[in-house]
């Protein structure tokens, strides 16, 4: 049993980002563990729409009362939309980490392999619980 919420439809990176396939696009955000560890989020720096993000590379920055943390993109692709709500109310990440997505990408050709390399919700729940110790 995990103390952290997970979204069953998403897949997870060891660096605590999630990626969720929604039709032809992939939505990216940070996990409940990530928001809890960061504490209150005060600012999110998002990639530009139209820019390319690369799996395993920094794509965004999340700033909390505690620290600035890089958001590592779990997937590669072209950014088609960023969550404009995060500009004025970044704190929604704390309340609803799986609803408060960061950006959406039009994935590249390797998307199936990239998603397969991520953890499923059950594996991640265990991983997050262990990371807490």
């Amino acid at each position: 049993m995990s103390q952290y919420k997970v979204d069953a439809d998403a897949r997870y990176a060891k660096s605590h980002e999630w990626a969720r396939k929604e039709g032809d696009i992939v939505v990216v955000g940070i996990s409940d563990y990530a928001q809890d560890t960061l504490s209150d989020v005060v600012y999110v720096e998002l990639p530009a729409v139209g820019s390319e993000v690369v799996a395993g590379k920094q794509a965004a920055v999340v700033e909390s009362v505690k620290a600035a943390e890089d958001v590592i993109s779990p997937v590669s692709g072209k950014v088609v939309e960023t969550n404009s709500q995060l500009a004025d109310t970044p704190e929604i990440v704390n309340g609803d980490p799986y609803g408060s997505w960061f950006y959406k990408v039009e994935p590249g050709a390797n998307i199936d392999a990239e998603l397969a390399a991520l953890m499923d919700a059950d594996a991640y729940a265990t991983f997050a619980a262990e990371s807490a110790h």
Partner: protein
Amino acid sequence: MAKAEQQPLKTPLYDSHVEMGGRMVEFAGYLLPVQYPTGPTLEHAAVRNAAGLFDIDHMGQFELTGPDADLFLQYIQVWDIDQMRVLDAHYSLLLYSDGTVVDDIFLYRLPERWFIAVNASNRAKDFAWLEANALGFDVTLRDISDETCMLALQGPSAETILQRLTPADLSVIAARTAVETTLDGVPALFGRTGYTGEDGFELYFPAANAVDVWNAILVAGKDDGLLACGLAARDSLRFEACLPLYGHEIDATTYALEARMNWTIAWNKEFVGRDALLKMKLEGAPRLLVGFEMVEKAVAREHYHVASAGVEAGYVTSGMKSPTLDKFLGMAYVPAALSKIGTEIEILVRGQPKKAVIVKRPFYKPRYK
């Protein structure tokens, strides 16, 4: 400095914090809650709007007595204690002879003795500094930190809450004065002091009563929006009020005048560091501590570089998104020429220059009684 190798210490309230879900971190050699499950933003707001209770027992307390106590204290710190009546409290600084800062302290003139509150991280250093300078003075200095518990109850509802636990009439206790009374039946010293920019009290009582008193205050304030608050809220509160924090705005490499601490200094007496400061006062400090607001949104964090027209021009001492003002603010040391309000500077945020502008300090005007 030896502390780093030691196991972190615990205050008597350690178990209480853990029970309450406090996120424990090491700070100044002690394990203390950086926040409770409520989170720093709500804890901060509680102090601005209602009240917050802080375990600040890591801080040190000294007692100074003896026939030369006044003479010695007048010499070793910057404030003019002749202006202090019995039960007055005042903020002050201990300086090195070059005008840099040993520590910032709170002085309480009590009947027949002085009570001095110092920063946790500087406790051993301060004690040694005071002892070393006391040669030739007939004084006795005692470190009473371990036997004394220190809590802070801060915020506009602090008086109402505390009044339920004490026979003393708190409505007549002015800001920067103290009263010796009881707190939930325990002998205690209350200072109408604090470091949050709000009205409130700092409470000193026997460490053996720490848990009972902590719980009694939380119960007394439960219907008034009182929250237990961690180190993060304490930092953001003092930051908004532009109160310096040792190790950030002031330390052994910063001069009291460049830190804008002129208001603490009584020039009409001799004190350690006066000659060096007077020289700086006449010549002007080459750099000054300023407040700035980010024009381009970003969190300016401690140690980030400041630039002006692409040239490096100082460093950030503290910075954050102000919870009360909802702005990205910071404090920095910059060359005096750049210190004027309205001056445009840049903060290098992860290598990227972000526009900022010098603004008036404090960011939040303290609301003392």
